[in-house]
């Protein structure tokens, strides 16, 4: 292993918006994409018209546009986070079973999800803290995790307590097994798969510094 910083592509760790921009840039033109509730929704702000991305929302729509403002707000047109959104030309509506058939049948190119933890083999934990008094709520997370061709995770690499969320094995309840293909964090982008975890690029730190933070053996891209 070398400490050279050839994969360091930014002087500083990325902020939430910079990270969203990075994810957006990596989405192939013409893709059909579902952006999870919360941080992943920011990605839509950085998709360009040339990319020609079609956004899916699990509550029954392809061709979702930006958040609705002012007069556009319509209680019958909301996204999975129950936020009023807009409709782009070429949109379509369908019922819930048809909407989840799109997700579960492997038709989405990419979904972007938040996470509590991702394991070395791409297991995802993002729906439940496991706390005994927490009310569990899963929504469409398991369907997205299992059904999309590529599952991208967006998260900070460390918890507020400084513990890595990229782990050997998840301690939080799983959302899906071996489903995550990429992990975008403030400090690095990781590729996950059956062969282990590869660091594709780092932000404001070196590969070795990332390796210090993460309790599993990393490979360099």
């Amino acid at each position, binding site marked *: 292993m070398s400490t050279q910083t050839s994969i360091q592509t930014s002087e500083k760790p990325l902020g939430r918006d910079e990270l969203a921009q990075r994810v957006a840039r990596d989405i192939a033109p013409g893709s059909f994409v579902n952006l999870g509730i919360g941080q992943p929704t920011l990605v839509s702000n950085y998709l360009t018209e040339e990319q020609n991305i079609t956004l899916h*929302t*699990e*509550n*029954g*729509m392809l061709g979702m546009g930006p958040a609705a403002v002012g007069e556009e*707000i*319509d*209680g*019958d*047109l*909301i*996204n999975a986070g*129950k*936020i*009023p959104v807009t*409709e782009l030309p070429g949109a379509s*509506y*369908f*019922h*819930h*079973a048809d*909407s*989840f*058939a799109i*997700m*579960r049948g492997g038709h989405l190119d990419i979904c972007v999800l938040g996470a509590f933890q991702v394991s070395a083999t791409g*297991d995802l934990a993002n729906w*439940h803290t496991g706390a005994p*008094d*927490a*009310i*569990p*709520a*899963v*929504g*469409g*997370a*398991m*369907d997205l995790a*299992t*059904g999309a061709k590529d599952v991208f995770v967006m998260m900070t690499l460390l918890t507020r307590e400084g513990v890595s969320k990229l782990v050997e094995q998840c301690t939080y*309840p*799983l*959302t*899906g*097994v071996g489903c995550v293909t990429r992990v975008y964090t403030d400090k690095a982008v990781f590729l996950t798969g059956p062969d282990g975890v590869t660091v594709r690029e780092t932000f404001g730190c070196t590969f070795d510094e990332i390796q210090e933070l993460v309790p599993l053996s990393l490979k360099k891209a």
Partner: protein
Amino acid sequence: MLNFIDTVGEAVAGIKDGSTVMIGGFGNAGQPFELIDALMDCGAKDLTVVNNNAGQGDQGLALLIKEGRVRKMICSFPRQSDSWHFDAKFHAGEIELELVPQGNLAERIRAAGAGIGGFFTPTGYGTTLAEGKETRLLDGKWQVFETPIHADVALIKALKADGKGNLVYRKTARNFGPIMAAAAKHTIVQVSEIVPTGSLDPENVVTPGIYVNSVVRVGGTSREQVA
């Protein structure tokens, strides 16, 4: 048999204690508030309710839960910022929860309407929500056996009905309506408008009238709110 009914009260009058009731809607979109209020007024209790959520704020399903009329919720996303009535009942141990991944919820409802006795899906495999369930390796993926969710009654909201009970919906308010209409023994629909038979284009009917038993027009201002 299709009936056009004058009031939401008459429409829900036949719902018995202990029924399984599907309620359409995702958040507030497509939620049949007036029918839920009528269900509240009709006094039926010990209900099993199938809905994506477990009520929001102080209205509709949330109120029904608050009043202790719901024995069990089958849903995918009970916890929301304003789901305080469900939260309280759940923590008090006064309501049962069957938590179902949203796609399994939709597919299980669809299965009930389509006469499917059960199916295998990869969703949930390896998670606590599949614990105790049969699993099988199919098409190279581990899959979990899931069974249909049938209901006695569905309460749904559509935009328009024609004289044959054919329905069309509006935007993302469509959500669970069509599959719940097919899954329930008795489907009650509130619509904004009843139009003459022949005025809906047969290519564009979303729910054919065969799935509809009672239609009630709900006039006045929509109570829909932005969540």
